[in-house]
């Protein structure tokens, strides 16, 4: 047996097999979920859907933040809402800021207004546990690299994104992260 030929062949074949094995599990179209991790969060100044006041990201610098992008038509968003309320109740007294951010599906003005009306009615029932912001132009949605809802961002005291939940939150994981940021 010619060992040199055998080893040379293995040297070519093994890396190819390795890359194939790794690639089979890789969806080339899937976005990297952690593109924004450890990067500064984008600032914003938006109207709260409760009438009468604006909220600015920079007002909360120095506090950990949880920003939840959601929509009234999104079933998983509504399903995770009680978890967020529970966590807000527990962590707001400790200085964590919770903010909701609207993601609009509608493109026409009157349809967006209808979404907004339904959202207000829902939140009134939930007694507005924390502010929900009206990103009417959806600029903030794109600044946070959001492609769908729900998506939740955890931001530390320095304004850096430390965690992104795509889909409903895991309240135990979020609780653990917030404990670490305090």
């Amino acid at each position, binding site marked *: 047996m010619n060992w040199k030929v055998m080893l*040379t062949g293995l040297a*070519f074949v093994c890396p190819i097999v390795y890359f194939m094995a790794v690639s089979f599990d890789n969806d*080339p*179209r*899937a*976005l*990297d979920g952690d*593109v*924004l991790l450890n*990067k500064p969060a*984008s*600032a*914003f*100044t*938006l*109207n709260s859907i409760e009438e009468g006041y604006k909220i600015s990201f920079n007002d909360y610098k120095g506090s950990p933040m949880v920003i939840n992008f959601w929509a009234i038509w999104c079933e998983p968003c509504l399903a995770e809402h009680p978890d967020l309320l529970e966590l807000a109740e527990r962590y707001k007294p400790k200085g964590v800021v919770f903010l909701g951010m609207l993601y*609009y*599906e509608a*493109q026409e*003005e009157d349809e967006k207004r209808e979404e907004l009306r339904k959202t207000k009615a829902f939140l009134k029932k939930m007694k507005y546990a924390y502010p929900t912001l009206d990103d*009417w*132009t*959806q*600029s*903030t*949605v*794109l*600044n*946070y*690299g959001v*492609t*769908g809802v729900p998506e939740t961002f955890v931001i530390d005291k320095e304004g850096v994104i430390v965690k992104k939940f795509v889909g409903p939150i895991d309240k135990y994981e979020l609780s653990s992260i917030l404990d670490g940021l305090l």
Partner: protein
Amino acid sequence: MSFFYVCMLLLNFAFGQEFEDIQIEEPPAGETPSALEAESRTTKLATLIRCTVCQGLSIEESTSTFAVKTRQRIYQLVQSGYTDEQIIAYFVDKYGEKALLKPLNKHWFVWFAPVGFVVLGLGIVYIRAKPKAKTASPSQSFTQPVKNDDTYRQQVLAELED
């Protein structure tokens, strides 16, 4: 299409969202274009960015909500004076390089390595397959006379019979 974008801009003004509130950290590096140029550049940029909720479509081709939002955002950025490079960099920063339909030309190794391996392999095959030139055996010396084959054969046969 330009009427649509003008309407979106008016809506921005109507609902208190400041158009100047672009929410991008760096200032625009270009000049404010005309409406026609902005629309043309928006269309061109929209063909470069992938609709992340679709299968292989650009945001120019897609009618999804995400695509519409992204086109509006691009138009807003173009109108504000951001260059094409800044806008591409913005989407890569927020969504990663996979947000582009064509990758950035940084991964030269991925493109050239297969060709390189094929060339290397062919080279090895050629070297191994090349016929070896006949050389004199080390035991023979050019100063020694070559034995007659018949005589040599007779000697071998005689030894075998023994």
